[in-house]
């Protein structure tokens, strides 16, 4: 019975179900797992309360991001088959368990349990949760896929905005002692288990053949129904790898500013801002970047529904490269140019994540878009290594002072964005010879017909 409740067949929307109930279900999960971006608050607490080094307290977050990419890539096909309720429930259980295991580890003075709990178990929750609503949203909002995935992935950007003040308040109330830290993690685990449960309780998939109001009926002729490419085929096509490069380099460029935002602001405005105001202004700069990162996910991804995916990535990558050059050449002491350029770059960074599921849908169709998205997220993991490496290693090795410190790394970022721009230009529609057969298209993964086909094949 329990299996039935979580199966895709149990969540087919009844007549009258509004598709506008799907975004809050997706947001409940993404706002929850987006807490990962607020790890720095817990990191500081762990450092103070347990006397650990910066490297040690960074480990749970680093492992969580690695696990995000790995679990999204490995479990993507299962998520597609089992459906979004199963995926959201697993994500909720893993993410909450990560906090609870960490709480136990702190209470028992076993820090490795924090690394394994938050980073390992919680990281699996991050990966499965991140991809869980994507293909469902695209199927409900096939007329506005950029907007729909933009809402959900904006939630991932916004999760840190909720978690950051809550974590500070909990640490303030319980204290930055081992006992206080354990209580903070335990409360967070219980709170996220409750908050994220709205997702798996509310999520519904559209009935087969459902079309949005006002949309033309789907053609009976499979040749007219657009792309339908399996995940195993997609990862062998150049379109997938060009898009992988686009995502990887767009994310790397964003990390170039995010990683050292506080330091970059101080170096560019040290001579024009009073020393006592500099710290508060730099903190405000980090805050406003978060806002740009989050809003870009919704605004630019929604815009892509109007102007097309290829054109919007031309803006992210081409304009992004020019903006990096503008910061280098005109940004020192010029707050207007510096702020406009860096806010736009961060908005493009967030938008790159939010728009990519719709780009995948355009290229490969909705057939296994969730699983393909999971594979593509390995680009994020690669960028998570590449971005900090470029920024930190080069800047730390530089003898220069002030903005000159960033010249080499910003030029590299400009070059990476240019390479991403070229990769985007090389993306062409997928040749129909790579589409799945008509029988497979008529029985999408997870449907009753697909199950019958699977059983028939095994007999």
């Amino acid at each position, binding site marked *: 019975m329990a299996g039935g409740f979580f199966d895709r067949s149990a969540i087919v929307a009844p007549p009258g*179900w*509004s598709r*506008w109930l799907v975004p809050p279900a997706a947001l409940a999960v993404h706002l929850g797992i987006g807490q990962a971006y607020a790890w720095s608050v817990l990191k500081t607490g762990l450092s103070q309360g347990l006397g650990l080094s910066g490297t040690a307290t960074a480990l749970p977050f680093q492992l969580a991001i690695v696990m995000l990419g790995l679990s999204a890539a490995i479990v993507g096909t299962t998520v597609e088959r089992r459906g979004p309720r199963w995926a959201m429930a697993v994500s909720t259980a893993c993410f909450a368990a990560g906090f609870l295991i960490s709480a136990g580890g702190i209470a028992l003075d076993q820090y490795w349990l924090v690394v394994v709990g938050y980073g390992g178990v919680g990281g699996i929750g991050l990966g499965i949760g991140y991809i869980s609503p994507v293909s469902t949203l695209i199927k409900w909002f096939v007329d506005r896929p950029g907007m729909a995935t933009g809402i959900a992935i904006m939630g991932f950007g916004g999760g840190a905005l909720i978690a950051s003040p809550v974590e500070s308040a909990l640490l303030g109330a319980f204290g930055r002692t081992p006992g206080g830290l354990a209580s903070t993690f335990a409360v967070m685990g219980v709170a996220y288990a409750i908050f994220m449960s709205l997702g798996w309780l509310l999520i519904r998939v559209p009935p087969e053949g459902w079309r949005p109001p006002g949309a033309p009926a789907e053609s009976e002729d499979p040749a007219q129904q657009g792309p339908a490419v399996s995940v195993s085929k997609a990862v062998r096509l150049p379109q997938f790898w060009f898009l992988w490069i686009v995502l990887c380099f767009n994310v790397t460029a964003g990390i170039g500013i995010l990683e050292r935002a506080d330091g970059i602001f101080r170096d560019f405005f040290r001579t024009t801002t009073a020393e006592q105001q500099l710290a508060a*202004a730099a903190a405000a700069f980090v*805050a406003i970047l978060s806002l740009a990162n989050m809003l870009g996910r919704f605004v630019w991804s929604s815009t892509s529904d109007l102007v097309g995916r290829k054109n919007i990535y031309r803006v992210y990558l081409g304009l992004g490269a020019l903006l990096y050059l503008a910061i280098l050449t005109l940004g020192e002491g010029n707050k207007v140019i510096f702020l406009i350029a860096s806010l736009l770059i961060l908005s493009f960074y967030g938008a790159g994540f939010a728009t990519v599921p719709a780009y995948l849908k355009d290229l490969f169709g909705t057939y296994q878009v969730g699983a393909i998205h999971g594979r593509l997220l390995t680009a994020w993991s690669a960028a998570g290594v590449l971005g900090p490496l470029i920024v930190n290693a080069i800047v730390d090795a530089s003898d220069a002072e002030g903005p000159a410190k960033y010249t080499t790394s910003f030029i590299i970022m400009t070059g990476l964005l240019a390479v991403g721009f070229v990769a985007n230009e090389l993306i062409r529609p997928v040749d129909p010879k790579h589409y799945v057969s008509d029988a497979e298209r008529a029985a999408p993964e997870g449907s009753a017909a697909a199950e019958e086909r699977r059983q028939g094949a095994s007999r």
Partner: protein
Amino acid sequence: MTDHTAAGPSSAGRTVLAVVAWLWVLIPFLYGVYSLVLKIPALF
């Protein structure tokens, strides 16, 4: 809000569900945005 098919007898219940679901996610989200916006004036 209901733009799928004709609303059934439980459409009032579904409206309540939609309001509760959106408030569930929007209230904490707007709290987070508000906390963030408070920090921004220090930039100028």
